[in-house]
């Protein structure tokens, strides 16, 4: 786990118009930033070229409809490692497993090769509507990883990705532990400081001040990024002279106030401690009552105004501030009540993490139809599915159930999804991929006594075959004219044993076949009489029901709905159907 006390990296972020003429400006800006961080000439020239290639692609492949949207470039300089991210709005592409030079007479096709050759690691994260290319370069004197050891390099890459996710996850899990255990003595101040320090790193802010409200009249500093900003109390009552201060105004007006070098600030306004700063003040309310204010911003430089926060950064700031406010409110509540509970707000956040993991659109697979269904129980669980298209004819289907509820389960689902997407070289090998994922996640999972059941199904539409690997997950059902097969290749759930072996099974997919991946929320569904839906009923259903995947999905959802009519949903229900 990263140490929250470690120094924060230097970062640069800007938007680039979607136009080739601006690409050189981007590389100049990053060059200057990296030079200021003390990068060597060699590193600078490698980054210049890799960034130009990345931006060229981001611009050249943007569809007409996305031309008005800028390409976002970020550079982050950590001690020992630098990272450049380029976020595009192209349709994205499959990053090739192996990048080779085109023939010498080819006039194109050298860009990705250059990027790969110049950087120590490259990750292409495909999203919906936008994709991010992450370029990393080691700054240490050590010789970079030998590229001939492909696996070593990928392990480093995954570890890097994991670090990143866990740095965010740790804040959330700390909150989880904190809100779940009222007897756990935790220093609210320290906790807030740590959470806000993480927030600042996430949104690229350089300073923050969190004030908590007292007696409907004062906002007192709870924590600040530096002691100079710890300016004590402000009164925000009508008529008081302090009400001209920006933080007091945000509290009174009950709305977010933005400030920059143009803002007129009262003489003694604490925000003045940061000359030429830009940022915002967000007042937080719990049950319609002011709980506090968060001021967060970037430092103005003598000659350049820092960019103001983007809308999504402002949203992130609001979420973190609200989350912190809930914890403070809970802490106050816990003084009188010892009832441990997961706050409604936390469930809301867990729910939004879970929803964000689900694909907005399923990919297509030649000759097959796909359909997915996911219904969340009241207490958000950790069900999730994913489909990774590997080529026109191949895809990896993922279904998993993280044991546990709330934010922690949702975060593990997010980590699992990221790790699977970062391991393309094993996407055709479900059993080996499960073994890798288990090794990577074991420590994290066992630390919090959680585990994940998962099933990975690699489908080759051309060869009409599938390969399945399972980590203690429900069986895979494959139905065709000859009957229904229930496949459960051996394998323990992830997070139980550090070195689990997984078995793979291969089956043919004849004409008119139906394949069902599901979570135990289906078989565990109970009706009013307390009877379980069970696997037999499910096998019976798939045996007798024909049609395209979309129709089967509606049919099964209705079937389940009728069965559990009037009884409450006590677990997530998720399934994926493939027909062809």
């Amino acid at each position, binding site marked *: 786990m990263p140490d929250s006390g470690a120094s924060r990296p230097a970062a640069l972020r800007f938007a680039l118009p979607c136009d*080739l*003429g601006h*690409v*050189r400006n981007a*590389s100049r800006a990053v060059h200057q930033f990296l030079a200021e961080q003390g990068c060597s000439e060699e590193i600078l*020239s490698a980054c*210049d*070229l890799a960034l*130009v*290639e990345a931006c*060229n692609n981001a*611009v*050249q492949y943007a569809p007409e409809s996305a031309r008005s949207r800028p390409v976002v470039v970020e550079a982050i300089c950590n001690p020992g490692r630098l990272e450049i991210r380029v976020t595009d709005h192209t349709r994205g592409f499959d990053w090739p497993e192996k990048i080779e*030079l085109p023939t*010498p*007479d*080819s*006039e*194109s*096709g*050298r*860009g990705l*090769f*250059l990027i790969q*050759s*110049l950087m120590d690691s490259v990750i292409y994260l495909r999203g919906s509507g936008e994709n991010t290319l992450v370029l990393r370069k080691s700054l240490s004197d050590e010789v970079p990883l030998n590229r001939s050891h492909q696996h070593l390099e990928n392990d480093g890459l995954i570890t890097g990705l994991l670090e990143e996710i866990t740095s965010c996850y740790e804040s959330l899990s700390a909150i989880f532990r904190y809100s779940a255990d009222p007897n756990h003595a935790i220093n609210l101040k320290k906790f807030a400081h740590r959470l806000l320090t993480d927030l600042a790193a996430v949104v690229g802010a350089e300073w923050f001040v969190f004030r908590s409200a007292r007696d409907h009249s004062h906002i007192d500093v709870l924590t600040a990024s530096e002691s100079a900003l710890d300016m004590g109390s402000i009164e925000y009552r009508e008529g008081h002279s302090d009400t001209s201060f920006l933080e007091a105004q945000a509290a009174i007006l009950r709305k977010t106030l933005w400030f920059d070098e143009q803002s007129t600030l009262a003489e003694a306004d604490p925000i003045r401690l940061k000359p030429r700063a830009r940022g915002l003040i967000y007042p937080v309310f719990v049950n319609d009552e002011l709980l506090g204010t968060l001021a967060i911003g970037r430092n103005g430089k003598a000659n350049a105004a820092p960019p103001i926060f983007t809308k999504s950064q402002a949203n992130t700031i609001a979420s973190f501030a609200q989350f912190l406010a809930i914890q403070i409110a809970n802490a106050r509540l816990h003084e009188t009540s010892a009832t441990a509970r997961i706050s409604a707000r936390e469930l809301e956040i867990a729910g939004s993490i879970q929803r964000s993991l689900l694909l907005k659109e399923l990919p297509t697979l030649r000759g097959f139809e796909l359909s997915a269904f996911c219904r969340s129980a009241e207490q958000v669980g950790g069900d999730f599915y994913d489909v990774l298209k590997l080529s026109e004819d191949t895809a990896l289907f993922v279904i998993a159930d993280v044991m546990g509820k709330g934010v922690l389960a949702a975060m593990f689902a997010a980590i699992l999804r990221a790790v699977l997407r970062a391991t393309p070289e094993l996407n055709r090998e479900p059993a080996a991929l499960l073994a890798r994922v288990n090794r990577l996640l074991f420590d994290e999972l066992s630390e919090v006594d959680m585990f994940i059941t998962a099933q990975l199904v690699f489908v080759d539409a051309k060869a009409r075959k599938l390969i399945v690997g399972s980590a203690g997950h429900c069986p895979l059902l494959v139905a065709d004219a000859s009957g229904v097969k229930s496949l459960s290749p051996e394998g323990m759930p992830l997070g139980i044993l550090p070195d689990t072996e997984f078995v793979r099974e291969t089956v043919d997919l004849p004409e008119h076949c139906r394949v069902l991946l599901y979570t135990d929320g289906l078989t565990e569904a109970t009706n009013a009489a307390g009877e379980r839906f069970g696997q037999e009923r499910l096998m019976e259903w798939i045996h007798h029901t024909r049609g395209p995947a979309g129709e089967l999905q509606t049919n099964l959802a209705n079937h389940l709905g009728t069965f559990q009519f009037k009884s409450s949903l006590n677990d997530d229900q998720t399934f994926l159907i493939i027909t062809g």
Partner: protein
Amino acid sequence: MKLQNNGDTLRASAIAELHAANANALRDEMRRAFGQTQRNIEIDLSQTSAVDSCGLGALVALHKTAAARGGVLRLINPTPPVQQILELTRMHRIFEIIKE
């Protein structure tokens, strides 16, 4: 960019950068200027601070233009960063590189 005719050779010089935004324009301009009787193309890269993959593409295209007339493409005095990308993409084996 400056263009100069030296007998059977067309020479381009004073190119600050050769990248996605100007590579195709440079290629087209040179093809237009390439005289009927000329065979060889020389590109002076001594003032060129950066070349990207699109720039390389333009060089390959000009290499083909010259080859079609039985001539060659010569790169003159590439700067170290340009030399580096030529070597990285193995193009230094294809083009004739001359250090004057």
